[in-house]
């Protein structure tokens, strides 16, 4: 008797599961997101154009990158022989941390310190760029191309 109930019961349950499926795009888990970006930067045929596009896109996201994504990006900079881009990326991350920069940024540097030492990447503090160095005019006040 139980078996005569069970088959239609199972069918009913599976039907309910089917109708409960949402038709919007599947939400990606955090891990998948991180892995996708890490593998994007780890791709050996990455070129400078894609690296920069990746950095600019990540800068617009509403989340802070995991240290392993930062490490993958810095290693891509090393592969493409761009020391200034690595420093620029760290500066951008410091800005991205916003109000919590005093907490997040030192933590990030500490997490990626092995990579920084291995690849000899200069942090903005090493170059003295955490404070403004030049007082350049805004482009709206310049009177010519050489008026700094």
């Amino acid at each position, binding site marked *: 008797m139980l078996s005569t109930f069970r088959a239609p019961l199972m069918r009913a349950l599976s039907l309910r599961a089917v109708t409960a499926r949402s038709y919007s795009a599947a939400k990606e888990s955090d891990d998948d997101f991180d892995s996708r970006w890490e593998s994007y930067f780890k791709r050996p045929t990455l070129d400078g154009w894609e690296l920069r596009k990746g950095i600019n896109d990540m*800068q617009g996201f509403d989340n802070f990158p995991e240290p392993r994504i930062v490490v993958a990006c810095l290693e891509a900079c090393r592969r493409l*022989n761009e020391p200034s881009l690595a420093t620029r990326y760290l500066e951008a991350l410091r800005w991205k941390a916003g109000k919590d920069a005093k907490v997040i940024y030192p933590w990030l540097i500490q997490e990626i310190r092995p990579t920084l030492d291995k690849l000899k990447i200069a942090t*903005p503090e090493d170059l003295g760029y955490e404070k*403004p160095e030049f007082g350049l005019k805004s482009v709206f006040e310049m009177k010519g191309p050489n008026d700094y």
Partner: protein
Amino acid sequence: MFKVVSSNICKKSLTRFSIVAQAHTAAPAAPGHHAVEPQFKQAEVYPRIGNREIVGFGRNGEPSYFDSPDCPCPAVRWKEDTPEIKALREKAKGDWTNLTVEEKKILYRADFRSTISETVAPTGEWKFIVGSLLGIMGATIWGYYFFTKAIYPVKLETSSNEHQARMLERMIAQGVGRVHGVSSKWDYETGTWKK
């Protein structure tokens, strides 16, 4: 100084920058993507940017430069390629221990006009604005003083009390406001104000 370039050449060579799909996809791109030969000579087709190398998409695909913390990698390098900078870039292909701090700074300034901390640094423009505002308020107060002391106190003959009494007498004689106005309060029989 400028070479006039026909517009169809420009359109053709800018398509590289409007292809968004190649970057930032979930699936790994085909291994041959990397080789896109430029079908133009840089300085010929881009009279705007001269000898600068185009390095990325920037914000919208145009080969322009601007510093912005939310778009940290612009589309072109900042400085034009000179032999010194080329030599430093060659050096950067080796181990970065050989690059001194000064050389790293030179490379950074060759790629970027200002650091991000310089971009977001306060400009002090607020002092100019507050100063102008206070100056305008001060000028307004001076104007008010001038107007109230020099322009407004006008001596009219008709303001004096004697003139007003003469006017009132004439109004009563004419019968102005006989129903509800001034003359209604005047008793014409006795020639005095009504009680």
